[in-house]
């Protein structure tokens, strides 16, 4: 099928299945996560269609699409405001299990992940181990056929909604810090696990701290070898970093700014879109977004040719997140005091009350707030620059 026909097929499906409620949940996203219930409802629809995991090999439930088709699908979903699926299971754990998991693990976990029966969260960071992940200290001590896990994980997104967690744990203190780490799958309803929500600056809860107090987990839940978890984690981080197309997000941001700029008035009483200084500021950022778009295309070209994105994915992470943040600042400048009203209930897709400010102003401040984290998680902007200096420039 050629790309145009494929796009038409995707659009037809979205038109059919993406209900106004689901679209609203996508519209109201103020971070990479959408409303949980809407997310899972959409997940199940895609699962029924067989489109829930386009990036997976066909044998495990993937779609067999070309790279281009996968990109088109992603683009169409985002531009039509489908709620984003949770990446922890589909984008992180799935490919990792396919690569490192035992046959039993694959057979057990992959179908439940696809169907949405299992909802996974990611247990990597700890209060003392952020950018320096290798220094993690949550311990798993062998006790018969089980490990006993003690410690805690932090910044665990949507832990409050998850029934499973995959964790990096310390199984040995010998050798380099990386050497004693293992990768393990844990049931969230195991005794000894407590989830404590972390309230974000926007007043809502996306992340949690997860406490492990003598949590007993079968050794069979280990993925890969004991003490070889760092290898697995690195593979997974690559997926986390390389898997994002910032261009689509930027296009959504730019469309929103254009809407704001063609409805709101500047200090001289002209529409913002007719203000030359505003246009210059916006263009500065939009030029970087365009440059990134073509950089992502270069990467896609390299991938298509069987190559490796290499350190260009660090470049994309840096420019993608920083450009997104600059767009947030532009919206803030347009909206001025209209960004201030705190109407948290209106960010729920089922809100039926009256908005205080225009719809396009509603999520401006929480987006600005939440997007500050984009240069921290998934390898901070500083870590990414360290990577470029070392791996690309050979410094």
């Amino acid at each position: 099928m050629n790309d145009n026909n494929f796009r038409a097929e995707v659009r037809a499906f979205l038109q059919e299945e993406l209900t106004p409620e689901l679209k609203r949940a996508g519209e109201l996203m103020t971070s990479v996560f959408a409303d949980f219930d809407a997310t899972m409802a959409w997940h199940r629809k895609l699962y029924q269609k067989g489109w829930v995991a386009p990036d997976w090999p066909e044998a495990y439930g993937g779609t067999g699409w070309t790279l281009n088709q996968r990109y088109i699908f992603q683009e169409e979903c985002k531009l039509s405001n489908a709620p984003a699926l949770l990446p922890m299971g589909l984008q992180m754990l799935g490919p990792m299990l396919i690569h490192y998991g035992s046959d039993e693990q694959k057979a057990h976990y992959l179908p439940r992940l696809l169907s949405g029966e299992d909802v996974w969260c990611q247990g990597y960071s700890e209060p003392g181990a952020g950018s320096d992940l290798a220094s993690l200290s949550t311990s798993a001590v062998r006790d018969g056929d089980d490990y006993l896990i003690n410690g805690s994980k932090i910044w665990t997104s949507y832990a409050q909604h998850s029934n499973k967690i995959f964790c990096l744990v310390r199984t040995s203190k010998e050798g380099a810090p990386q050497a004693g780490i293992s990768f393990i799958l844990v049931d969230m309803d195991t005794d000894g696990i407590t989830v404590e929500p972390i309230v974000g600056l926007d007043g809502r809860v996306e992340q949690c701290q997860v406490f492990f107090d003598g949590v007993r987990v079968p050794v069979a839940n280990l993925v890969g070898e004991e003490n070889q978890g760092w290898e697995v984690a690195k593979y997974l981080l690559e997926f986390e970093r390389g898997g994002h197309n910032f261009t689509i997000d930027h296009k959504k941001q730019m469309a929103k700014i254009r809407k704001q700029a063609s409805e709101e008035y500047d200090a001289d009483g002209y529409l913002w879109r007719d203000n030359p200084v505003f246009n210059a500021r916006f263009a500065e950022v939009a030029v970087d977004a365009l440059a990134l778009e073509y950089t992502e295309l270069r990467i896609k070209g390299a991938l298509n040719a069987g190559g490796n994105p290499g350190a260009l994915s660090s470049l994309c992470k840096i420019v993608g997140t920083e450009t997104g943040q600059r767009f947030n600042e532009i919206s803030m400048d347009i909206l001025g005091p209209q960004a201030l009203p705190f109407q948290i209930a209106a960010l729920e897709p089922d809100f039926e009350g009256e908005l205080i400010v225009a719809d396009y102003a509603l999520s401006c401040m929480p987006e600005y707030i939440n997007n500050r984290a984009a240069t921290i998680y998934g390898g901070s902007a500083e870590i990414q620059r360290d990577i470029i200096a070392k791996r690309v420039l050979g410094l």
Partner: protein
Amino acid sequence: MYIEFSEEQRMLKESAEKYLNENYEFEARQKIVKSDSNYCSTQWQTFADLGWLAMTFAEEAGGFGGGALETMLLSEQLGVNLVVEPYFETVVFGGQLISAGASDEIKSRYLDALISGHCQVAFAWSETKHHHAMSDVAMAASVSGDSILVNGSKTVVLNGAAADVVLVLLRTAGERGQSDGLSLVLVDADAEGCVRRSYKTYDGRNAAEFSFSNVNVPLANVLGVQGSAMELLAPVVHRGILSLCAEAVGAMSALVDATVDYTKQRKQFGRSISQFQVLRHRMADMFIALELCRSLMLATAWKLDHNDADAELTLAALKAKVASAGKFIAHNAIQLHGGIGTTDELKIGHYFKRIAAINSQFGSRDFHLARFAQLSQK
């Protein structure tokens, strides 16, 4: 221009610092923010008792005759402690407008109450889609005989939820965009036909949407000269912007201090993250941005108090610089704190939100850069 603080000014600064550091710690602040009204009347009463509310009014009005420098000193400390009580709205704007423009009768009715902590004021000027310049006000009122009939609505009126009195900027002549023809009218917030929808703001304060339908206000409630509100407003707005900027400077300095402390303690890769040169230089740049703002802030206060010809130019520079420096410092304070800086639990992000709110008011960076350019060409 040499700025030397008087004995009284030093005392004001020290007493504000001491009182707030002891009684307005972050935990106490958060308790207030999470209360229904996000406002603490006990604190406000203490502010009154400490003379802070009276500080900048003339002695004959029951004040201490303080000027821009006093406003600055107090505002800066309010910024350090992230105080959410509406000093800015009620005193710097409301009080100064009433004091400068109201009849003796109105003054005695409202100003005394305000100074003693018993009257809250809001200034209502911005309108939906038009909220960047005061001249861009369309809401019109018809004057007939001794009264004004007020109709229309105002958006994001800060302190609007708590206000007893609203100062409404409206048009009694001229057209949207013109400075002439604007009048400032004192309206009782409980007047018939005045409806408000109250809410909190992201920076932990309160505001409201106001709608007025056939609200009948006596002509005597016009502050200053009818149709010439901008003349009354200009000096108050100038001092108001200084106050906001000083608050931002207080917030920025608290962020620099907190970030320096945190990076010394936080260990990653086997050492304090303060040992990483990139972070050291980032903090040096944060310090530089802060001190440049501080220099402009001090100069602006001095120039406003001395009616210096460059006062407006310096003020425009200050607001523009605070916008960029405030963002730079707040963004990097969060970045250097990492994940924990994005949580409700730490004060870091609350400074960030307050700085964002300050930036959103009374003109963006580009607005003030244009103003600066215009005044430079004179």
